[in-house]
């Protein structure tokens, strides 16, 4: 045997013997950061790569699990597979165009991602929105919230291995999306909200579809939930899983249903009211357990509150214009504006800086999905591989929003 002259810990030498394919740790010092992780492996542990192409990661999330048998020891979400640079795109478009770039952020609840930049821009420009437009915004966005939560239910069940609820909840979503298509012209990326109002008034088709749906919505949703709520396997798997207490949830900057499931009654619609929410009556459901079941049940309660809001909107809707009178080319004074709204996943906010041109100088979008994903690492250790999917599903991240 000849000995090599280079020191044995030199990362550049290629070992002359074949690497055993079953050795989890390469027999040379780490060359990259990712490779360095392998040296943290304990005895009997291994890494398993879930995603970015995996049946249950809600798009292109990649999660590197360090597992010990079936038990998850550590977890590392790897992001960026859907990065499109939305914020930068918005900075190179004028204020009207920027709105449609924000649409595909949370592609199952696009009206909300439009709404927060719209409010921010309105603040920059001191625009007074007609009251009818505000009511239409609330009405359509609450419909969208129901669609989003219905889809959450289906995905959650699918990640737990239930085949049926996803198709049942798609019935709900299809009905809502069809009526929103009648209102906005699009099924998914609506591009409906405008600076100073909305794109069009309520029309006959939308109203007739809505009236038809409202008459049976509550029972229909209840019937769909029955498949999961009364299912012993489902409840047993979800209860006590991924528990996060109120203090930790606040420290991890959680918002929305995930925070309220931990017992903090924080809802932007009440805490920092915007639009016409002060005039509407609704409760903020909270639960104290903070586990996956609480997150699921809380969203189902929210659907009921959304139905209440829609009902009130229909009764209180004033007459009038749906669009403020505005110049075609808008150059707001230099300044900065911040707007936060309550999306179906939590606080969705936009921070926009104007430098006096017709394009935002800087636009920062705060997306709740991204914030929520960081707490997966806190919840997971000690649980099983199957629970990873359940916990991630219960946080309801949308990868379009996470990667922006």
């Amino acid at each position: 045997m000849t000995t090599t002259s280079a020191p044995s810990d030199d990362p550049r030498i290629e070992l002359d013997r074949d690497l055993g394919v079953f050795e989890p740790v390469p027999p040379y010092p780490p060359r990259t950061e990712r490779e360095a992780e392998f040296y943290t492996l304990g005895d009997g542990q291994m890494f398993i790569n879930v995603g970015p192409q995996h049946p249950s990661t809600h798009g292109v999330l990649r999660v590197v699990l360090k597992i010990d048998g079936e038990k998850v020891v550590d977890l590392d979400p790897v992001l960026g597979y859907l990065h499109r640079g939305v914020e930068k795109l918005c900075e190179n478009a004028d204020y009207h165009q920027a709105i449609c770039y924000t649409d595909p952020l949370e592609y199952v609840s696009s009206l909300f991602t439009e709404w927060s930049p719209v409010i921010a821009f309105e603040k920059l420009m001191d625009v007074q929105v007609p009251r009818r437009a505000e009511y239409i915004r609330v009405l359509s966005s609450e419909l969208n919230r129901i669609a989003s939560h219905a889809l959450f239910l289906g995905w959650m069940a699918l990640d737990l291995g239930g085949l049926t609820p996803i198709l049942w909840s798609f019935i709900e979503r299809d009905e809502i999306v069809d009526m929103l298509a009648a209102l906005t012209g699009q099924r998914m990326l609506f591009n409906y909200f405008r600076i100073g109002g909305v794109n069009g008034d309520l029309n006959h088709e939308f109203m007739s579809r809505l009236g038809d749906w409202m008459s049976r919505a509550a029972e229909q949703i209840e019937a769909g939930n029955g498949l999961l709520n009364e299912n012993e396997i489902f409840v047993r798997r979800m209860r006590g899983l991924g528990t996060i207490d109120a203090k930790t949830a606040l420290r991890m900057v959680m918002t929305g249903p995930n925070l309220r499931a931990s017992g903090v009654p924080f809802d932007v619609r009440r805490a920092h009211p915007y639009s016409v929410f002060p005039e509407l009556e609704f409760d903020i459901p909270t639960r104290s357990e903070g586990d996956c079941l609480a997150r699921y049940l809380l969203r189902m309660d929210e659907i009921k509150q959304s139905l209440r809001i829609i009902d009130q909107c229909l009764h209180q809707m004033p007459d009038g214009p749906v669009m403020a009178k505005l110049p075609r080319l808008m150059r707001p004074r230099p300044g900065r504006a911040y707007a936060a709204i309550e999306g179906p996943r939590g606080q969705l906010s936009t921070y926009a800086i104007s430098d006096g041109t017709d394009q935002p100088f800087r636009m920062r979008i705060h997306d709740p999905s991204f914030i929520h994903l960081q707490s997966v690492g806190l919840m997971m250790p000690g649980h099983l591989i199957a629970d990873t999917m359940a916990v991630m599903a219960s946080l309801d991240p949308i990868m379009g929003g996470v990667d922006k």
Partner: protein
Amino acid sequence: MTVISRSWSRLTLPGKVIFTVIPILIALTAALVVVIVVLGQPILDALAANLPIVRFALAATIVLLMTIPTAFIVGYMELKGIAFMNLRIGPDRVGPYGTLMSVFHGLKMLMKEDFTPSGADPLVFTWAPVIVYLASVMTLLVIPFGPGLFGQDLNLGLLYFFAIGGLSVVGMLMAGWASFNKYSLLGGLRAAAQVISYEIPLTLSVVGLILLAGTMSLNQIVLNQSGWFTDWYVFRQPLGVVIFFIAATAEANRTPFDLTEADSEIVAGYATEYSGMRFGFFYFAEFVNVFIISALTVTLFFGGWNAPFPWPWPVTLSLDPGGLGIGLLLLVAIVPLLLTIVFAIPFWIASSRIKTWQALVAGFVLANLFLIGLVGAGAYIAFDWVAGVAWFLLKSYVFVFLLVWMRGTLPRVRVDQLMDFAWKWLLPASLLNLFVTAAAIVVVSQ
């Protein structure tokens, strides 16, 4: 000559193989015919002398062939049943109501690339699906499909069933290990843990039944249950049948115990790296397993091929067509015509808008259905194996539907819950069942 060589060189490799094989096959067939013609009588004598062996070989072949339509029917039931529960339409393109869907699934698998990952152990990787498939198919040999219709009436039939059925875990472990994939490895190990754990309550749940029946021969167990449906063992072993069915569901890796191929967790478990017909064998084995556990549940607890009620009066069909003479010809010629017209008359009368030929077509169809029903009823009465197979398949497919229903409704359990359920609930319950049964037998016999 140049034409032939040019054509030959233009053929693809499969074409060349087929062109070589077909003449050989034709020659072999001709040789076989010659051999049969020349040596016919000695062969027949040899066959007759070794009747048990011939019977066994025939039964094995039939059972192997039977898995194909069974898998197709179960697969179609699953596609259509889950679609029905999902409020979808399901397959409706190939064949009437999509009935040929499973056939086309099979064809698709045959045509796909048979891929082996580079790190895999090719030998183990190839044989794993074969073992999984054979383990499930071989269990069919002892199941009595009708009176006298079984592969082999083993004294230890039930034990054979569990022993061979448990072999499938070897194939799954082989697939999980040889695939060189972490998902596969997890799936294989999950399969090992699950199948071995559920083997125990599965076996213990039928010990009470064995005590009652006094035999482990499946054929004898079915014969013990003949008579009214109250004689079925389900009424004497109600806890046993529940434990048995749950444990058998877990053995066959069906929802809610399909952790080995949990698609939302470990992609496809031990079958992740498989494609083509090798995956097809896993697929096949799963569907056949569904039928097998239904069939075994029926055999053990629901009377097997026995009808739920005995035929109230003895029927003997004595048909001597030869005795009718020329009347037979008239019967065959006239009765269909007459029936067609008889069935057409109501349509013709019912509405003046129905044209005569339309009424006749409807009458023809109805007459055919009537005759088929008549023949079926006659066969049911005349041959007890027809009745037996009919009842057996009917009962089995009820349980197949139950399994499909469970798949459409239930989410998946977690690994630790799965193990807890086996060891903390099913095992004590099956021991309790055994204890109560044994005590009852002792009390009654004294």
